[in-house]
């Protein structure tokens, strides 16, 4: 349910041209074949009463409220389950159906609490609405008979209540859980009058398989499933459409408020990325924005050992500007730089890189994509000519074979995972390439055809072996390759070599050769084969090589340039794509154009009025190295927590300690702020105007639902720092910044706030050739002209397991938490994941005497931490896994400085470690976890 009502046509849209003509209450309407009578009526402007029907779910035909009469047909069929037929004449309001509907409503209400005035859904209840629509005036059956009015409510979930006394057993929640979310956690228990919705066999919601995506709450037509925030605060009174600030799916939401108090976030049906769906983070985990831990006043200190001192904005900005200039005077203009954030808007990122290039006078700007998807940018640019994924999310609905490599979409990109699972339930085949048995390998109604459970660090060997099969078994799409690609012969000769065969690589990858051959054949022979990948690809010393390897395979099989195919990075943070697009890599301007390109540089120099260096600046790891060697002394960190998120934390903190001036702009005093001299409080996404660009290149508007609690917009603060350093950057509104971005960036030429408001969202490139954007890339030709095959030699990582460090650690995320946890740890989501856990195989646990739940030490060549063990056969023997959501664990204490050869992206996924039972006193660490949890949610 939602305050801002979007049209609901009752049943889903059917594809195709309108070829069936029907007449509804005398009004003619043409619809595609298979369209329901209910939808046809709605398209004619006639809403038929309904309770169990909604257009996000297949018709169910249970509530009997939508009955109609059809000329020439007997009885009163349900309009939701009756397909419109050519020449059909439908009557939606006749004395007969009116009487039937009233009778149905009477029965519903005879077993429903009539506490409408005090019900949290008052004014937002479809049962209430339908009672009015059908003209119900009395309930003849009384309320004394058998009923469910005393049914006990389940309040176990932190975000919503389940009150079965209000349930009308329409099954919308059950169907939403299955059809939309794909979890199948809910069921109808019992028969007849005893029928009731249940999250498993007598379980509470919190103990069930429910993932708290909110689809059931949204689908519920009554107050049976109700947001706790609505119960506590009351019904919202206004609604603003904006974009989620969590992962790279980029879901659109209606932020529903009372005054300036956010009551709930409801997924927006017109959101191009999510089309009305959500996950637990975007839907419910917004409480961090008003958490008492937020810092709202600027603070400064001389030394990092001093206490913070609150100051006015003017002093804080002056301190930054003077400090940075002073460092440059003493150590050279290249001694300072900045890190932009993928959690910030495009406009904020743009002004930071502009400040660095124009006001700092160097190119020392990098973005946190350095440590996640920089190999995507490099690899796809080399092969396809554009540093971005090829498809929109809808494309997966046309895929016949889906290959998921090094990604865990159900946890990391859950709303996209729901789309993918829907397609898999429809019959698409799945190949999972991952050391872990992630949920996609086998979950309700889904089973991967092949799970290639490779040894971490051997991605390139696996992709080369798949290519070997494609080339040597004559599975290449020869016409595609001949027409559209170059470099094939050399590459084909390379992958055909015996050392790249599945049999030869089996000893390295541990993937059975026959299994790999079968997976390769499946992908190559599919009419449409799509590849989706994540950080399990990029965060390796050969991350860029692997991206190019996947691009090679896709080109060889002709799987580029149409719906249902492609090579698609699943981006971690909300604006990873955007932060890269906005020119915050040290070697590139906006739109991925190199700083050495004279023509491009001239555009910026003319507009900005400053000379721009033609040489690349420092990347993040280079900044740390340069800080330790003394040539880099001042850093502005915008919205990132490098002291928790970056690898080998000892090295990171040593670099931060070595600097003269560290400026942190963030919502909270994060781990990096412990090393800062100036803290500039940031604004939450609820306080921002701007845009985010998601993993499908979709530029979405972010709209402020309230003023910044700090009194200043983040882009304003950056501009004021630049001005204080002698370079005015003047904008009245972020829309002007986007106009400037469009002016200097060919792929953004047609994007403006006006065009975004008109079209909802736009996938770049958007320009004269594609005025409404580009959902699918490389349709007729690649951006670089010919797609380029690149030889991708497998080179083992330098990280080696030894008798001292015999296990391989990989890291990743969990559904309920987000990255370093700065936001989600400050929400009710800690109920699901209060601490980082180390998953290890039962064999590895047993030989070490480790039991499930024991505290263990995790030691690598560079560091050690303590955390709780979870014994799990999801892991293969020899591989352990943990998350990095909690600073108390600091998982990156153990990760090394190995990095991708092309981009410096850290090799987070491969660390040789040892695990052992912790000293009994380490139990105190568990207490610290508990303390941390309470500190952040109290």
């Amino acid at each position: 349910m939602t305050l801002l009502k979007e049209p609901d046509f009752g049943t889903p849209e059917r594809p195709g041209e309108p070829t069936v003509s029907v007449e509804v209450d005398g009004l003619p309407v043409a619809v595609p074949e298979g369209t329901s009578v209910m939808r046809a009526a709605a398209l004619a402007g006639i809403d038929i009463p309904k309770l169990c029907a909604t257009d996000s779910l297949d018709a169910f035909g249970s509530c009997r409220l939508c009955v109609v009469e059809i000329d020439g047909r007997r009885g009163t069929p349900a309009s939701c389950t009756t397909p419109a037929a050519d020449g059909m004449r439908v009557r939606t309001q006749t004395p007969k159906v009116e009487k039937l509907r009233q009778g149905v409503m009477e029965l519903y209400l005879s077993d429903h609490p009539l506490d409408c005035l005090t019900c949290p859904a008052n004014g937002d209840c479809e049962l209430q609405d339908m009672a009015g629509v059908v003209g119900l005036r009395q309930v003849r059956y009384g309320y004394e008979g058998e009923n469910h009015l005393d049914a006990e409510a389940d309040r176990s979930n932190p975000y919503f209540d389940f009150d079965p006394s209000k349930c009308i057993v329409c099954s919308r929640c059950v169907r939403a859980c299955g059809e939309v979310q794909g979890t199948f956690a809910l069921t109808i228990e019992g028969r007849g009058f005893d029928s009731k919705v249940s999250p498993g066999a007598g379980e509470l919601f919190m103990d069930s398989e429910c993932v708290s995506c909110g689809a059931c709450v949204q689908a519920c037509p009554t107050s049976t499933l109700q947001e706790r925030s609505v119960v506590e605060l009351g019904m919202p009174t206004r609604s603003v459409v904006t974009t989620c600030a969590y992962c790279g799916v980029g879901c659109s939401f209606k932020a529903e408020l009372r005054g300036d108090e956010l009551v709930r976030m409801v997924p927006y049906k017109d959101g191009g990325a999510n089309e009305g769906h959500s996950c637990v983070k975007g839907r419910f985990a917004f409480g961090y924005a008003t958490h008492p831990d937020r810092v709202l006043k600027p603070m400064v200190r001389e030394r990092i050992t001093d206490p913070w001192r609150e100051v006015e904005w003017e002093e804080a900005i002056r301190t930054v500007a003077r400090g940075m200039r002073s460092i440059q005077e003493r150590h050279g203009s290249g001694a300072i730089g900045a890190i932009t954030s993928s959690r910030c808007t495009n406009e904020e990122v743009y002004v930071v890189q502009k400040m660095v290039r124009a006001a700092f006078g160097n190119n020392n700007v990098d973005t946190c994509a350095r440590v996640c998807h920089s190999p995507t940018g490099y690899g796809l640019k080399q092969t396809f000519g554009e540093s971005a994924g090829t498809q929109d999310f809808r494309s997966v609905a046309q895929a016949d074979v889906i290959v998921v490599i090094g990604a865990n979409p159900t946890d990391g990109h859950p709303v996209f995972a729901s789309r993918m699972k829907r397609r898999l339930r429809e019959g698409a085949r799945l190949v999972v390439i991952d050391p872990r048995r992630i949920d996609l390998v086998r979950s309700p109604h889904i089973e991967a055809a092949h799970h290639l459970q490779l040894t971490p660090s051997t991605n390139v060997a696996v992709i080369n072996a798949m290519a070997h099969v494609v080339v040597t078994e004559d599975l290449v799409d020869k016409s595609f390759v001949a027409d559209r690609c170059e470099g094939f012969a050399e590459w084909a000769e390379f992958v055909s070599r015996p050392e790249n065969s599945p049999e030869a690589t089996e000893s390295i990858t541990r993937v059975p050769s026959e299994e790999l051959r079968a997976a390769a054949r499946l992908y190559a022979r599919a009419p449409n084969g799509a590849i989706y990948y994540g950080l399990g690809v990029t965060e390796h010393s050969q991350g860029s090589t692997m991206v190019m390897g996947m691009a090679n395979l896709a080109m060889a099989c002709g799987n580029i340039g149409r719906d249902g195919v492609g090579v698609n990075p699943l981006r971690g943070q909300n604006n990873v794509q955007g932060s890269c697009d906005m020119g915050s890599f040290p070697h590139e301007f906006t739109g991925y154009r190199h700083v050495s390109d004279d023509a491009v540089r001239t555009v910026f120099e003319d507009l900005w009025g400053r000379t721009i260096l033609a040489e690349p600046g420092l990347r993040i790891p280079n900044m740390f190295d340069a800080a330790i060697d003394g040539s880099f002394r001042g850093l502005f960190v915008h919205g990132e927590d490098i002291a928790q998120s970056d690898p080998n934390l000892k090295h990171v903190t040593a670099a931060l300690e070595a600097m003269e001036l560290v400026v942190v702009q963030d919502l909270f005093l994060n781990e990096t702020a412990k090393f800062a001299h100036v803290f500039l409080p940031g604004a939450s996404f609820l306080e921002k105007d701007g845009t985010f660009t998601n993993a499908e290149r979709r530029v979405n508007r972010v709209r402020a639902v309230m003023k910044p609690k700090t009194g200043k917009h983040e882009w304003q603060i950056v501009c004021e720092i630049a001005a204080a350093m002698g370079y005015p950057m003047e904008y009245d509104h972020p829309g002007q910044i986007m106009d400037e971005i469009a002016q200097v960036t060919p792929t953004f030429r047609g994007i403006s706030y006006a065009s975004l408001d008109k079209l909802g969202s736009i996938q770049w490139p958007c320009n004269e050739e594609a005025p409404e954007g580009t959902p699918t890339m490389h349709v007729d030709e690649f951006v670089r002209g010919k797609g380029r095959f690149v030889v991708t030699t497998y080179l083992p990582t330098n990280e080696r397991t030894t008798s001292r460090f015999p296990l391989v650690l990989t890291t990743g995320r969990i559904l309920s938490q987000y990255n370093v946890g700065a936001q989600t740890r400050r929400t009710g989501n800690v109920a699901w994941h209060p601490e980082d856990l180390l998953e290890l195989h039962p064999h590895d646990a047993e030989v070490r005497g480790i039991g499930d739940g024991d505290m263990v030490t995790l030691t690598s060549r560079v560091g050690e931490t303590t955390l709780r063990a979870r014994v799990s056969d999801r892991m293969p023997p020899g591989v352990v896994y943990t998350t990095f959501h909690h600073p108390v664990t600091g998982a990156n204490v153990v990760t090394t400085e190995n990095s991708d050869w092309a981009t410096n992206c850290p090799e987070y996924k491969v660390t040789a470690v040892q695990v052992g039972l912790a000293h009994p006193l380490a139990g105190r660490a568990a207490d610290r976890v508990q303390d941390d949890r309470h500190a952040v949610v109290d």
Partner: protein
Amino acid sequence: MANDIAAAFGHLPDEQAAEAVAGHIQRFWDPRMRARLAEFVDGGAEGLSPVIVAALRPAGRTDGTAGD
């Protein structure tokens, strides 16, 4: 890192590999990093791939500037 770049282009003939490595370093590395690498090469290049040495010293250049 430099050796890793050289290895990534290891499938190419030596001259082409040196050219590719030089181009990559020129395109992605900050000048101070390139200068430091050049100093290392001039200091004997111990442990460094010959491809890197060739990349930084094309046609007898020793100033640390990568080739075009």
